């Protein structure tokens, strides 16, 4: 079987105001010695978990992709990254065309570090660009200089990376349409093969949510955000980046294999605190806090916090929910009469593509992508 790996690096130098990810700063962890030591010893924990994964999976599965996400994986030493990859390689079989991605903060890397990552086996790099507009970055609480993006992507390309991606965020409070157009244009000027563009989600409990609640930062207008999506899709498509998932665009054959594994319901192992795994219809996830995670691993205990055996109905719900987000959509012959009836209204209203519908597939049009959740709710079992 195939088994993708997600490696969670739960550390950041600073927490950004909009972020609710499972990540920790040195001050949150009460560390004064810097992150270097901690990331070193953290690697050992990951290696232990990967070895135990092998036992649990019970076979030398083929690994088509590895993804280092965070947090800020680019804080890791290349040596550590290398030893994690080689552990996975010794416990499992790395596929010949394996994709190994590392998320990177444009501020924490230089050409030398990028080169070392490349040497360590990373072959795809994804930079957190978010925006090219200083006041938008400030609202997001990001510290990097937007001008750095051109430099780091150029370096990445020079040291050998063929697959380079940037993440963008639109719909930040205070971002105008022309601000967003600037970010789009800036991204399209970079030597990249892939763009992820996410509408900002104001998550409960974040600093940004509190600022909005207190009235310090404006509410986000969903209609404006919708227009920005259309602007992005229009520009990206023009430059040869085609959508292959609702929030992802790529050059031909540069789709992220790893992310597609999530959306196609494949198996993956998530290692590290709070990481989620999916193995043959079972989902399980680790304890969230790095200290608790360390305790469990050190004590030779399973770090799993909880799990969920998916029932047939839930598997089907997830299939609909995930596959509708892809251009291939949902095959009509997998739907029941009621679902087809419910969806036909969206064909009439132009949210589902009429031509594909007549040829047996429910696929989202551009307007349909913007209300994908509403459409899925109609057909959820």
């Amino acid at each position, binding site marked *: 079987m195939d088994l993708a790996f997600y490696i969670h690096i739960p550390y950041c130098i600073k927490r950004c105001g909009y972020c609710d990810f499972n990540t920790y700063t040195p001050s949150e962890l009460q560390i004064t010695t810097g992150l270097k030591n901690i990331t070193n010893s953290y690697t050992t924990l990951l290696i232990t978990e990967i070895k135990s994964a092998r036992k649990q999976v019970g076979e030398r599965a083929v690994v088509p992709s590895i993804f280092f996400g965070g947090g800020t994986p680019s804080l890791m030493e290349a040596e550590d990254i290398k030893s994690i990859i080689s552990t996975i390689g010794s416990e499992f079989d790395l596929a010949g065309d394996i994709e190994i991605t590392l998320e990177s903060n444009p501020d924490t890397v230089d050409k030398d570090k990028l080169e070392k990552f490349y040497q360590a086996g990373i072959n795809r790099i994804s930079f957190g660009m978010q925006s090219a507009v200083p006041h938008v970055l400030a609202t997001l609480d990001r510290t990097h200089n937007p001008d750095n993006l051109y430099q780091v992507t150029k370096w990445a390309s020079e040291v050998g990376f063929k697959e380079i991606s940037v993440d963008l965020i639109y719909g930040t409070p205070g971002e105008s349409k022309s601000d967003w157009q600037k970010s789009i244009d800036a991204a399209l000027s970079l030597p990249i093969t892939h763009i992820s563009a996410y509408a900002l989600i104001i998550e409960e409990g974040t600093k940004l949510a509190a600022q909005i609640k207190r009235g310090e930062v404006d509410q986000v207008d969903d209609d404006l955000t919708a227009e920005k999506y259309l602007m992005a899709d229009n520009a990206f498509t023009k430059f040869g980046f085609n959508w292959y998932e609702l929030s992802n665009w790529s050059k031909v054959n540069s789709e992220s294999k790893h992310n597609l594994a999530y959306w196609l319901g494949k198996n993956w192992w998530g290692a590290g605190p709070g990481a*989620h795994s999916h193995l043959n219809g079972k989902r399980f996830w680790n304890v969230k806090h790095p200290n608790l995670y360390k305790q469990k691993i050190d004590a030779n205990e399973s770090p799993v916090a909880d799990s969920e055996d998916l029932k047939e109905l839930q598997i089907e719900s997830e299939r609909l929910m995930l596959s509708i987000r892809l251009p291939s959509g949902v095959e009509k012959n997998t739907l029941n009469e009621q679902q087809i009836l419910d969806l036909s*209204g969206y064909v009439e209203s132009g949210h589902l593509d009429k031509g594909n519908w007549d040829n047996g597939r429910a696929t989202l049009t551009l307007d349909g992508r913007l209300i994908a959740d509403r459409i899925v*709710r109609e057909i959820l079992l």
Partner: protein
Amino acid sequence: MPSISIAKAPQPAATNPAQIRNFCIIAHIDHGKSTLADRMLGITGVVEDRNMRAQYLDRMDIERERGITIKSQAVRLPWRSGIDNQEYVLNMIDTPGHVDFTYEVSRSLAACEGAVLLVDCAQGIEAQTLANLYLAMENNLTIIPVLNKIDLPAAQPEKFAIELANLIGCKPEDCLRVSGKTGAGVEELLDQIVKQIPPPIGDPKAPTRALIFDSVYDSYRGVVTYVRVVDGHLSPRDQIQMYSTGVRHEMLEVGVISPEPMASNGLGVGEVGYLITGVKDVRQSRVGDTVTTYNNPATVALAGYKDPKPMVFSGLFPLDGTEYPMLREALDKLQLNDAALVFEPESSDALGFGFRCGFLGLLHMEIVRERLEREAGLTLISTAPSVVYKVTLDDGKKLVVTNPSEYPDGKIAEVQEPIVRATILAPSDFIGTIMELCQQRRGVQKGMDYLSEDRVEIRYTLPLAEIVFDFFDQLKSRTKGYASLDYEPVGEEAGDLVKVDILLQGEKVDAFSQIVHRDKAYAYGVTMTGKLRELIPRQQFEVPIQAAIGAKIIARENIRAIRKDVLAKCYGGDITRKRKLLEKQKEGKKRMKMVGRVEVPQEAFIAALTTDSDKASEKKK
């Protein structure tokens, strides 16, 4: 102490009418009637201190919580007069204190020879009290004016003594001063009841005639009927007969309340007590009817019997459609105790199956709804209240319409709507604003009198429909809560009325149709479409909301199509979270009502049908 032990007191069925005094207390909500009654129970010794609880006589939770009396009770109080040292029996008949129950009040009054007019001497008399006072005067009752709450720092007994004196034509110093709270003056009040109120007069040898002044359903005993014997005698062995229906019942028990029910050997002339026949439905034992005996029936009924006539109608629908059978059961049960409640099944395109219910008035409606929700655990949607319209079509055909959705389209020659005579009491500062409100509500002024230097009584006739629609709350808010209102039906008048329909995406939503005066149709349309625009979430298509009279659109709003309804990110850990979120949203969707293709949340129906006044009373709670 002038109280006498119950065992030694004059016994029921063996009490000389000359020893009996039947009285009631006329008072506004909050003026301290229940507290005074509690104090009388204590002073006469029928309730021992350790058994005392506040508002002893108010049986229903809802009565105690709202501080109002819905159903009356009658208590037999033994009393040795401090004036002549003789033993007496005082029957205190507690009357309902609200405008909706005027008929029940009038029957309670008919069972008495005298009334204590109880007025809070920090507030003065209120319109409803005045209405009941006039009723008592019409019934030739002896009125004993009493100023209550003299212990309050804000008490102004001199001022309100003058007001009372002007109203009933006595001298200010004739007004007794009591405090139900401290008990001050209550013994003297009991003595004055004996002294001033005449004893009942009746013919003990004549065929039995007893007035039903209340009828209450008890789940253990069936219907308990409260009566005042006018002539003859009721005994436990009698077979009784209801005059209006001629139906015969076995007497299972007859007795008095003091203050718990006590079976007796019967009831004689002038006595007040209860009887139980095994009847299960208060409609078989109607307030105002005459009880006589089967063997020697009376040939003439006591005056004043009326069938209760519902004045206000509203649809009640269960929020959860599967609760419809429970709603029916709960209404059936409530009707056992409420002869004035009428209902019939109704079905609405928008709200599903429910009942069209008729009520005596707005308070009655509110109480019924609250009891249904509380006692049966139902969550209900009630449609906007409507009155009874008599419609004559061009072809001469006549219709009675209590539901706007049944209002005929076009071809209407004339519509008659119910008119009430409203009495408003308020400080004179508010005359202007009250008159303005009454004019806006199509009122016609009938007169105005000063009760005292700074308080006026304003009389208007108004269409009932105008009162039903948040009039009382408007009145209260415009007068800082000082005005009080009473109204009684005085007939019908032709009105220039139209039905306003509300359309969602071109489809009529029956629950929102309303019959309004032509001049107000536009305002109603604008308000309702505006409200709905706020309440209905955006759909994947544009939804026009229109208000229309027939085919003519008078107001329009638009709900723009939703542009974005998607979460951008969906990676490993997001999948479970997102699936659960979608499932939850899907559950929420099931609670939506479909109007054509438009999903309307239940809350939108509730909020749209709620007048601003309901919101205000929500806030008060």
